[in-house]
């Protein structure tokens, strides 16, 4: 995955995002419009919202540009190290379900070294997934949770991502 690797080594700034889009052969006004959001200062809410927007549209180059090469990722369903490992994890997840993350509260460290986001995650399974790490899912099942996610940031990228469950999972079966 050479292309993804080269795009992902770019910082999540406007210039980096555009260069990353070029490396992936992406073009067009929509990409540049999305990139403009990344003019925001590191750890500011607009900067973070651009990350979430990329994640929600499954824009792997866009969201993974926020990760350091050796990011430590402690999610609710997986603990992995490395940018590509995180992308691979979510790619696998999306084979089974649609995931949407909504920002409820955000606090960025003015020094740009940390951020805390309160996130509501909504999962809707489109296939049966009996081995889902946080509990089996059947196609059509919907699951919702609220998590506090702490981001350690260095040089404009996440070096560590840690998710702590705030609310119990709510959901309904199909």
């Amino acid at each position: 995955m050479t292309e993804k690797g080269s795009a992902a080594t770019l910082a999540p700034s406007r210039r980096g995002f555009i260069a990353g889009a070029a490396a992936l052969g992406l073009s067009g006004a929509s990409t540049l419009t999305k990139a403009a959001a990344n003019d925001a200062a590191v750890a500011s809410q607009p900067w973070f919202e651009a990350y979430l927007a990329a994640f929600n549209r499954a824009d792997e180059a866009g969201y993974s540009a926020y990760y350091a090469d050796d990011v430590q990722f402690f999610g609710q369903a997986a603990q992995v190290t490395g940018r590509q490992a995180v992308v691979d994890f979510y790619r696998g997840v999306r084979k089974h379900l649609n995931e949407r993350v909504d920002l409820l509260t955000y606090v960025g460290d003015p020094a740009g070294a940390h951020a805390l986001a309160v996130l509501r995650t909504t999962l809707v399974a489109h296939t049966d997934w009996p081995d889902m790490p946080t509990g089996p899912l059947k196609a059509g099942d919907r699951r919702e949770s609220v998590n506090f996610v702490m981001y350690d940031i260095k040089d404009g990228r996440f070096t560590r991502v840690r998710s702590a469950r705030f609310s119990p999972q709510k959901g309904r079966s199909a």
Partner: protein
Amino acid sequence: MTQEERFRSYIASFNAQDWDALVRHYSPDVHLVIGNGTQMIGHDAIVTFYKKVNQQTRRIIQVRNVFTDGKRLVAELESEFVALIDAPDFTSGPLKKGDRIHINSFALYEYVGDLYTNIRAAVFRREFLPVSEAS
């Protein structure tokens, strides 16, 4: 005093079990939700809850990190509870005298002026160290 300094003073009050000093950091109708989902509203509810916790355990909180954006404050906390007595009704689950719990949590404080109005915490890591396995 900066918000960060005020927060460290607040945690020092917790560790000293100085309830009068503690509640001076809260608005009268402060709303607190701790990592196990327990909700408390107001000074009396919080003090009553933590007095019981401190009768059952010795609790020390360390501040690993704290930052604020001017409206809210975030803290990463490490807490250690050591059971002083058998506590079958302890808030995080039954404890036997000598059992330990380590909790790494993220807490979010909303404040108005110098008073916390809304506090929520979520547990990132919880480690139970039973006395039977102590070295």
